[in-house]
Structure formats: C-alpha cells, structure tokens
C-alpha cells in the first residue's frame, strides 16, 4: 500500500475521479447576474424571475429523483402543494407566526413524501409513476373538497401580505438566497455517499442490492428529500402570491415539472435549472406574442426535443460549452 496521502490531496483526487462536478467560477457570476436583472428591470420581470427561481428548485427536486434515482414521478406537484398548504394552514388555522409556518410547509411536504413514498417505492418504473400520480390526485382531491379546512376549490387568499410585505425585488433576492442554499444542499446530497447510493440504486438496483444496499430504503430517502425541497418551493410560491390553491398539487404542475426536467436535460444536475429557465420564459413570452400560444409552444417543444434529445444540458455538453457537466 502507498504511504497515506495528505487528506486535501486525497479529496482533490476524489473530485477529479468522480463524474459530476460544478463549475464554481460560473455560479457567482450567474447569481450576480440574476440579482442585477432583478434590480434593473420592471416588476413583472421580477415576478417572472422569482417564479423561475422557485421552479428551478421545484424541477431540481424532481430531477434528484429522475436523473439520479431514476425514479420517474408523475405526482411531484403533491409535495409542492403540501408545502404551500402546510405553510398557509399553519398561518390561517394554527395561527403560527410566519417564521414558524415557513418551516412547517416543507416539513408537511416531507411527511407526505414519507407516507406516499413508502407505498410507491415498492413498485418500479411505470407502475411507480402511476402510483405517485394516484397519491398526488388523492392529495389534490383532499385540498379540493375539504372546504372547512382547506377552503376547497376556491383556495385560500388574502390571509397575509404577499411576499411578507416585502417589495418584489427584495423578495426575489430573498428567494434567490433560499433557493441557492437549497440547491447547494441538493448538490451536496448528490455528491455525498447518500447521493452515490441513490445513483447506484437508480442505475442498477440489482447490482446495488447485491452489494448490500436496501434499495427501497434508499429510494424512500430520496423521495422524502425530493418532497422536502419541493415543499420549500411550494411554500415560497404560496408566499409569493399570498395564496394557496388545489391547482398547486394538480396534474398541470406535475406535467410542467416533468417537461422542465426533460427539456433541461436528464442525467445532469443543472437540468432542472435549465428547464425552469427555458420553460418559464417560453410560457411568459409565447402567450404574450401569439393568441394561439399552445400551438406555438407545442411546436417549440417539438423542435427542442427533436434537435436536442438529451435536453439542453446535453446540448451544452455536446457543444463543449460546459466541460464538466452534462452527465
């Protein structure tokens, strides 16, 4: 055996030997750029920016499942919705102060993830996906029909000043900070031994089991983590609009997040972020330019998928613009 190497040297060697890495030099400029856009443009741009940031987190939480755990969820909006309602109901029903309610949202989402995830991870592939869909629709129905508690289909509005009363720009900055921290945490998880196990279980569950991994337990852990971060996104969204509606847990949002992840690029950490940026920008501009926006959006989606079947991150990797990523 070699003489023990210096710890920092070892960790440097590990970094160079693992397949995914982040180009830190570009993160700070990107954050600064986002903040500059936020401070120099109008209110609607700020709102759009805030939504993009929130959905970057939501899509990235789904991306943890899809790209790394290879678990395709058709019901991820459930945890977005639970995050939003967990927060909202903590304010309106439990009368908790906002600071405490903010924490409760993601926790409720994680709890939902634990409950539903325990059922779902017993299945694989399309059957896993369909059970997540069923769980999400059950959540949606409860939010939709339980008038006395959740306000039913017309939702909960007017219970707080949107954005905690912050200006749009300040809230965008706050969101940027929270989401950056959350994304960093997700990034940390992906790179940690837990992340390695999630990836192992996703890439080949039989291999992973033969190595001694209880795959279902790993998958459940990934599911709960994804639900937790989706819950943060949902909570932020509820704060942004000062309202919660059953739609937040609906099929539409699930499809949106799926499109984002796939458009952005599977098997890449940045895929969710890219997808949120592309899809939200399309969703903002296309309807304002043409009346038949669904048609145009559909055509654009088609063109993107046909020209970049590995998603945007894959395209970037192919063009050699992003040497480290795109895996």
């Amino acid at each position, binding site marked *: 055996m070699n003489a023990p190497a210096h710890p920092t040297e070892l960790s440097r060697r590990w970094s160079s030997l693992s397949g995914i890495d982040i180009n830190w030099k570009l993160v700070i400029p990107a954050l600064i750029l986002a903040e500059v856009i936020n401070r120099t443009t109008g209110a609607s741009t700020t709102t759009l920016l805030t939504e993009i940031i929130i959905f970057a987190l939501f899509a990235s939480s789904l991306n943890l499942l899809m790209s790394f755990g290879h678990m395709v969820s058709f019901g991820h909006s459930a945890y977005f919705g639970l995050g939003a309602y967990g927060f909202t109901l903590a304010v309106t029903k439990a009368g908790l102060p906002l600071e405490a309610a903010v924490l409760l949202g993601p926790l409720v989402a994680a709890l939902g993830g634990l409950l539903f995830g325990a059922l779902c991870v017993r299945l694989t592939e399309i059957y896993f996906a369909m059970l997540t*869909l069923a769980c999400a*629709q059950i959540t949606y129905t409860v939010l939709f029909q339980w008038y006395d508690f959740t306000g039913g289909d017309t939702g909960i509005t007017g219970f707080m000043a949107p954005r905690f009363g912050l200006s749009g720009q300040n809230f965008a900055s706050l969101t940027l900070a929270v989401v950056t921290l959350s994304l960093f945490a997700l990034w940390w998880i992906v790179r940690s031994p837990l992340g390695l196990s999630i990836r192992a279980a996703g890439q080949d569950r039989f291999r992973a089991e033969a190595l001694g991994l209880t795959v279902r337990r790993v998958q459940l852990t990934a599911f709960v983590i994804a639900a937790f971060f989706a819950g943060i996104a949902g909570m932020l969204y509820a704060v942004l609009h000062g309202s919660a509606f059953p739609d937040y847990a609906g099929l539409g949002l699930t499809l949106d997040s799926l499109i984002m992840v796939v458009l952005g690029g599977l098997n890449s950490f940045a895929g969710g972020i890219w997808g949120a940026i592309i899809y939200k920008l399309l969703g903002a501009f296309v309807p304002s330019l043409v009346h038949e926006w669904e048609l145009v959006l559909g055509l654009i989606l*088609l063109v993107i998928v046909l020209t970049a079947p590995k998603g945007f991150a894959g395209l970037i990797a192919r063009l050699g613009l992003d040497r480290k990523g795109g895996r």
Partner: protein
Amino acid sequence: MVLIQFVNGLMEGMTLFLIASGLTLIFGVSRIINFAHGSLYMLGAFLTYELVQILAPGTLWGFFASVIVGAAIVSLIGVLFEVTALRRIYGADGLMQLIVTIALVLIVRDVVRMIWGPNSITVPMPDALAGAIVIGENYFPLFPIVVFAAGLVIVLAMIWVIYFTRAGILLRAGTDDRGMAALLGINERMIFTAVFAAGAFLAGLAGGLSAPYGEVNHLLDTTVIVSAFIVCVIGGLGNLYGALAGALVVGITKAMGVMYFPRLSMVLIFLIMAAVLIGRSLGRQGGSAR
C-alpha cells in the same frame, strides 16, 4: 336500481375500454406512453361531427360510416405524427417520447380550437338509437347498448388479429422479444408504425362512437387521457384482456359508487388504481422488486 347501475357501469366500462385499447396496444409494442391518445380521440369526435353532416345526419349508416371514416383519418394523422416526430427519437430516453406526445396535445388542442371554436358542439344521435328498451319502470338506453356491442365486436376483432393472423404473430414476436423480431427479419419500424396507426384508429373510433353521448369540445383530450391510462394500468399496461377487465371494473365501481360513496367520485378511479398497485406490490415476494 342496483341492476340499472350495474348496466350503467358496464356501458361506461366499455367506452373506457374503447379508449384504453389503442393506448395499451401502442404501449405494449413500442413502450411509448402516448399522452396524445386523448387528442386523437378528440379528433375522432370532431371528424365524426363534420362527416355526419356531409353524409346523412340522423341515420344509422351515416353515423357509423362517419365514425369509421373519421377513425381512418385519425389513423393517418397518427402515422404522420409517428413518422415525422416519434420515429426520430426511438433511441432516446422514454421520457423524451412522452414530452413529444405532450407537445402534440398542445398543438392538436389549439388547432381544434381554431377550426371548431371553443364552444361545445353536438353530434346528432342517429334517430334509431335515441330511444330505450323499457322493461317495467326500468329504462335501458339504446345508444350505449349499441356502443357496447360495437366494443365487443372490436374486442373480438382485436383478438382475432392478434392471435390468428400472420400480422398478429409478427406483432407478438415484436412485443415479446425485439431480438426475435429482428431474427425473423421483421422491420421493427414497420411494426411500430403499423401499431401506431392501429392505436390511433382505435382512439378515433372511440371518439366518434362516444361523440353523440357526451360533450365534444377542445378540452376533451385531458378528460379522457388520464382515465384511459388508469384503466390500462389497472389491467396491466400492454395487456388487452387486462384493459377490458380494468375498464369494466372502473365503470361498474364508479356507477355503484354513486349509490354507496358519492363523495369519492373525484378520486374513485385513482383509489382503485392505488389499491390495485399496492395490492400488486404486496403480493410480490420481498427481495428482488421487479
């Protein structure tokens, strides 16, 4: 009342099966989750609406001819889509195919809206089928009975094609073992296209047949696709008999549910699916989850 509800359930079940059959066929062979199946169904309904007016509104032959011609056109549209879009990404991740079909949903919805407007349209029912068989105080409407019969004919036709014709043998070879199909010298792409055409035809047929009995508008696609999927999943995706059983179970449970647990109508179909899936996962031995 229980009897009538049971019959109601059977009728809805068959309608569901008609929608689900094409979906499960396409999935069984090419593993494509065709989210645009509901759009093809919707196109079938709208084309029937147009054709009936040209051919002979109110008559039996006019209606059925319109349905079949409409389904054939839908089938062509399906092939066009398969050849121009889906075929190009068979090698890519299955999710890419899902997104392509979602894109098609958006496109078809807006095109339908541009042509026929956002308001609902009414496809006239053939006069001969407007009535009911009345036994004592019980009414059994004729139209769904005829749809039920048409569904049975389609089931039998599919069974005949799949199990007793050369095309069916090739199809099953393609489904069971891609390598085997290649060995037999079958062009896999040809099979995929043919199956997509057949699936689209079934979708169009279902849309046309159901059109006079419900609302037809540009939002019909989403209403249909989710329940069709659930029916397939309950029966086991790719399994034709399973789809039939799943459709009947869903139809009958929904109809009976109106009497016994009406508040669950919104989730009932999802609860059935969840129960079936959870049951399936529990029925499996521990260890290797497959």
